């Protein structure tokens, strides 16, 4: 009897536990992916685990191959980031391989540059010529005259090409594209909490406050983040408020869309900080976090001093003040600030809508401040430091030459005071200017200098000029607007035909290791450029130690802790992804106390001015004395020697700096900014061009949609079929005052030129703004993007697959390349335009 009663007790107790899924009567779950079959023959399609590269999110995927042909790309159910889900863009990747207009051979220009006359040449001919030119520069002691400019290059591709090949060659004249992407946001984060990249912990948050991010359509970690946000909104009824000039799909899924005047998000964020401080809403979690924040010049200020400094700084930033600037009612600002501050954990997110402005740097810093004041930094449910895998890889064998560099990647002197991610959009202008030298060889890889930057007409003019750029090389799988202006085109493999290890951050704070492998062999004479680098290096006499990227990836798998033990390369090839099942999500990394032995290690000194412990030997300082006398802040590369931050009596690992010599505090008071003559605390600066706008003038804003990445997916027929036109959004009020009706052809004029497009009159955009997506208007890039191709087909099978003829208009023709004066971010959202009916 006793036993019977115990059973009952157990049964009763178990009722509280979550036992779903075990009972016999429950509906069996259908398997979510991992397999696929041909709907025609029923035959199973071969599954090849690999990694997407349509956008920077780089999601693990599975390629399904049928009869030697990639039929479909599906999600990777084993991925802890995507949980097996996959966006439209990733699935449209099938079209990349099958693009009928892709490049299959190396081509050499004949005739005038840009005249469109080409000769197919062999790889040997191409590489002999290229190696000849590269070798000559290197032997002449001018490796820096070889400029390498990349758009998308990450993980193993970046390591092998940049850290091994280019380092082995000796050039540091390397351009990237971050400043036309999100560089401004990164710099602001480097100034506040060290390394860049914030992860938004939607899995644990209770409130989402969004400034200008469209993460449900496009984001650096799109699918991984989007599915978690939806889960939070739908399953846990998390409230979300979005500030944006436009009703993006993200704004549409938010509980509240708050239209804001273009470039004034910073004012709203500061006013919210003011409300939080004034109403004492920082108390609790925010107060705890204050200890790790720097709000004053003095490193060891007391809690009270910090608060006093804050109150003084924020005093004028009232919601009423912000209402005048942003157009958002003061009451709205106040109530959202209160909701946000009282919903711990809450996450404030931001992206280009808020940051790609003249004042973007401090907008992002103000947003960081709002997160800090409410204690939502690196906590479950808040704004977290990114966690990604740490791959080890084979280094350049032997001694690297001392690298040289042309000073053309950081813009003109004084153009941006802290360009930690360079000024990619100024590179061509710098070349034209010529004062800091010009490259003899300008090579670009996975990049579209003509199309992706503003000032398109000028880009074309410079790239065309053989006096400015004597020799140009384009590495791309597709003939695009920029390739048309190259001297040599090398056909690159698409991402589905090459090897890589990958390292995107995890939204769940647990690192995921994954690789990319070819789903089908590259057609024609297509070669992965990293393999070409191995070849080139051999020709130039500095072999890289690996003969191919595959070898590089294989060796990396054997070198990397965890992956190696799991089964190394063979495991990764068959599984695609790996994560440490024992790993716990990483939060509060800054709270770790630095071990005493680390502080007494060789070369570690403490810096009185900042309270930072640092190892001068890892910096550019020549001696301990030099280090001490110059101090942490003023020693070049001091951040590389950072060990810990003294707060009170304890040395914490704190917020480790990257790229700038900031302290280990969460720096809202930035000495670095102060020394550059900039406001130390986050400050609102109005956008000069927007202050004296005439009645007929609008601010042009650009955006992305869910089915396209900026410039490299328009050749995907399945994607362009869904999105191929980009009419300009106009608020009915603006339209009325301009005399424009829905569907009217319009002319959009900026100081740079005129864009002809059509109007879409919609209340989904704020008055005073004209919104044009920047995916369309290709004039090369194959039949689906531009419509350019020779007629094909016999009478029997007519060529009528592409049913749309309007390929949209590209706004970059009329957007100037202008930098945020602090971090150099391209100011995509600031252009003032006039609109008229055509």
């Amino acid at each position, binding site marked *: 009897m006793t036993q019977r009663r115990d059973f009952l007790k157990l049964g009763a107790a178990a009722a509280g536990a979550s036992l779903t899924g075990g009972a*016999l*009567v*429950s*509906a*069996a*779950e*259908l*398997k*979510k*992916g*991992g*397999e*696929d*079959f*041909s*709907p*025609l*023959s*029923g*035959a199973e399609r071969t599954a090849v685990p690999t990694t997407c590269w349509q956008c920077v999110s780089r999601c693990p995927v599975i390629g399904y191959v049928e009869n030697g042909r990639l*039929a*479909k*790309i*599906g*999600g990777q159910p084993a991925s802890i980031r995507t949980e097996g*889900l*996959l*966006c*439209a863009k990733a*699935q*449209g990747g099938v079209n990349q391989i099958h693009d009928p207009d892709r490049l299959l051979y190396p081509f050499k220009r004949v005739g005038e540059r840009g005249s469109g006359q080409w000769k197919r040449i062999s790889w040997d001919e191409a590489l002999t010529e290229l190696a000849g030119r590269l070798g000559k520069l290197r032997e002449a002691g001018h490796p820096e005259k070889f400029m390498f400019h990349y758009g998308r290059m990450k993980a193993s591709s970046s390591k092998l090409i940049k850290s091994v090949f280019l380092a082995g060659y000796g050039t540091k004249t390397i351009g990237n594209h971050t400043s036309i992407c999100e560089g401004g946001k990164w710099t602001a984060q480097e100034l506040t909490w060290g390394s860049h990249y914030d992860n938004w912990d939607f899995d644990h948050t209770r409130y989402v406050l969004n400034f200008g991010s469209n993460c449900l*359509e496009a984001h650096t970690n799109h*699918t991984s983040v*989007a*599915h978690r946000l*939806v*889960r939070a*909104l*739908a399953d846990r009824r998390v409230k979300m408020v979005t500030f944006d000039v436009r*009703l993006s*799909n993200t704004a*549409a*899924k938010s509980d509240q*869309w708050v239209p804001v005047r273009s470039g004034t998000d910073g004012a709203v964020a500061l006013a919210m900080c003011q409300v939080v401080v004034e109403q004492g809403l920082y108390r609790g979690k925010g107060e705890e976090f204050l200890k790790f924040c720097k709000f004053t010049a003095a490193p060891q200020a007391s809690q009270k001093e910090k608060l006093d400094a804050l109150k003084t700084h924020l005093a004028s930033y009232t919601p009423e003040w912000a209402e005048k600037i942003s157009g958002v009612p003061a009451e709205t600002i106040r109530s959202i600030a209160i909701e946000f501050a009282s919903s711990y954990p809450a996450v404030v997110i931001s992206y280009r809508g808020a940051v790609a402005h003249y004042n973007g740097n401090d907008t992002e810093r103000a947003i960081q401040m709002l997160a800090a004041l409410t204690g939502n930094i690196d906590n479950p449910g808040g704004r977290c430091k990114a966690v990604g895998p740490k791959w080890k890889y084979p280094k350049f064998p032997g001694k690297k030459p001392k690298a040289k560099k042309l000073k053309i990647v950081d813009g003109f002197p004084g153009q941006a005071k802290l360009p930690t991610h360079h000024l990619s959009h100024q590179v061509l202008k710098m070349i034209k200017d010529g004062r800091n030298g010009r490259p003899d060889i300008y090579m670009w890889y996975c990049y579209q200098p003509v199309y992706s930057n503003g000032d398109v007409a000028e880009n074309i003019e410079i790239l065309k000029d053989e006096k400015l750029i004597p020799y140009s090389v384009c590495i791309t799988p597709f003939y695009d607007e920029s390739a048309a202006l190259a001297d040599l085109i090398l056909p690159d493999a698409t991402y589905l035909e090459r090897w890589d290890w990958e390292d995107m951050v995890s939204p769940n704070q647990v690192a995921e290791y994954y690789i990319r492998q070819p789903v089908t062999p590259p057609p024609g004479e297509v070669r992965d450029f990293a393999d070409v680098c191995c070849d080139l290096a051999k020709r130039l006499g500095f072999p890289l130690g690996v003969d191919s990227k595959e070898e590089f990836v294989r060796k990396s798998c054997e070198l990397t802790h965890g992956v190696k033990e799991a089964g190394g390369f063979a495991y990764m090839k068959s599984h695609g992804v790996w994560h440490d099942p024992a790993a716990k999500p990483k939060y509060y990394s800054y709270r770790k106390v630095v071990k005493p032995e680390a502080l007494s290690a060789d070369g570690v000194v403490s810096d009185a001015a900042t309270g930072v412990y640092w190892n001068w030997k890892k910096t550019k300082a020549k001696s301990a004395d030099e280090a001490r006398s110059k101090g942490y802040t003023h020693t070049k590369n001091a951040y590389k020697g950072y060990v810990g931050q003294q707060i009170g009596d304890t040395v914490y690992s704190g917020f480790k700096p990257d790229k700038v010599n900031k302290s280990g505090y969460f720096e809202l008071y930035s000495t670095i900014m102060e020394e550059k003559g900039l406001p130390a605390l986050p400050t609102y600066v109005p956008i000069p061009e927007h202050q004296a706008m005439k009645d007929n003038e609008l601010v042009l804003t650009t955006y992305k949609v*869910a*089915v396209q990445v900026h410039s490299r997916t328009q050749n995907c*027929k*399945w*994607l362009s*079929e*869904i*999105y191929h036109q980009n009419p300009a959004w106009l608020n*009915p*009020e603006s339209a009325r005052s301009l005399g424009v009706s829905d569907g009217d052809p319009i002319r959009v004029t900026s100081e740079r030129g005129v864009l002809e497009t059509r109007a879409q009159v*919609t*209340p*989904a955009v704020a*008055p005073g703004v004209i919104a044009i997506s920047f995916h369309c208007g290709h004039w090369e890039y194959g039949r689906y993007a531009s419509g350019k191709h020779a007629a094909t087909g016999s009478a029997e099978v007519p060529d009528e*697959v592409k*049913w749309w003829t309007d390929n949209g208009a590209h706004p970059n023709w009329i957007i100037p390349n202008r930098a945020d004066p602090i971090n150099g971010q391209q100011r995509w959202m600031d252009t003032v335009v006039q609109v008229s009916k055509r």
Partner: protein
Amino acid sequence: MDEEGLMDKSKAPSQNSRRAFLKGLGASATLAAAAAVRPASAATRPVQYGMLIDTRRCIGCHACSVACKAEFDVPLGNTRSWVEYVEKGEYPNVSRNFLPRLCNHCRHPNCVDVCPTGATYKREEDGIVVVDPDRCIGCKYCVQACPYDARFINPVTGAADKCDFCLHRVSRGIAPACVETCIGRARIFGDLNDPNSEISKKIATNPVSVLRPGMGTEPNVYYIAADHSDEHERRRGSYVRVTTHRKEKERR
């Protein structure tokens, strides 16, 4: 050398195999249904597959549309599965809702009623409405009859085509392609006749709706929080814009 035989091998999977496949599936689907979907206690109950789309979870990302396009290599200009955007309101009170669309696998499919050759039929074993491309003559009667514009003539096969709930996957115990990929996990697929299936439970406990109930077709695709607004509402003077993302730009 048996050259004829070699010729045959050189052909792509033909429509015949598709037909044989459809037929062969009859048996296997019943098996799968019995083994995987139905509880043992209700083994005699026929299966009616259905889908529930929670539009609150739909972010309009078109992942489903492209998944479908890839799964079946649907020729450009045609869609088995698509997502409509419904934008409405007056500034600043504006909304944009998303309405994923596919064949409803109706209980009373008008397309089946009008088919003169019996090429389209509702499978008894799982309630999926399918088209046998070898029987279909492409008369487009079903295309006209479908109140949901879910059908088209496939230019390659010359036969009517539409969503078949990924029968080739479902019969092997794998979710339809659109369900697998849905970023918002907005789609729930399962047996509507099983009261314990996830879909049945969700339908029982949520306010749901179907499209065009007045047509009397009794759809088996249900929606939670669907926005039924239509451009016809513009007649009242309010702003509604429906974007279908299809070659046929207007909803019909």
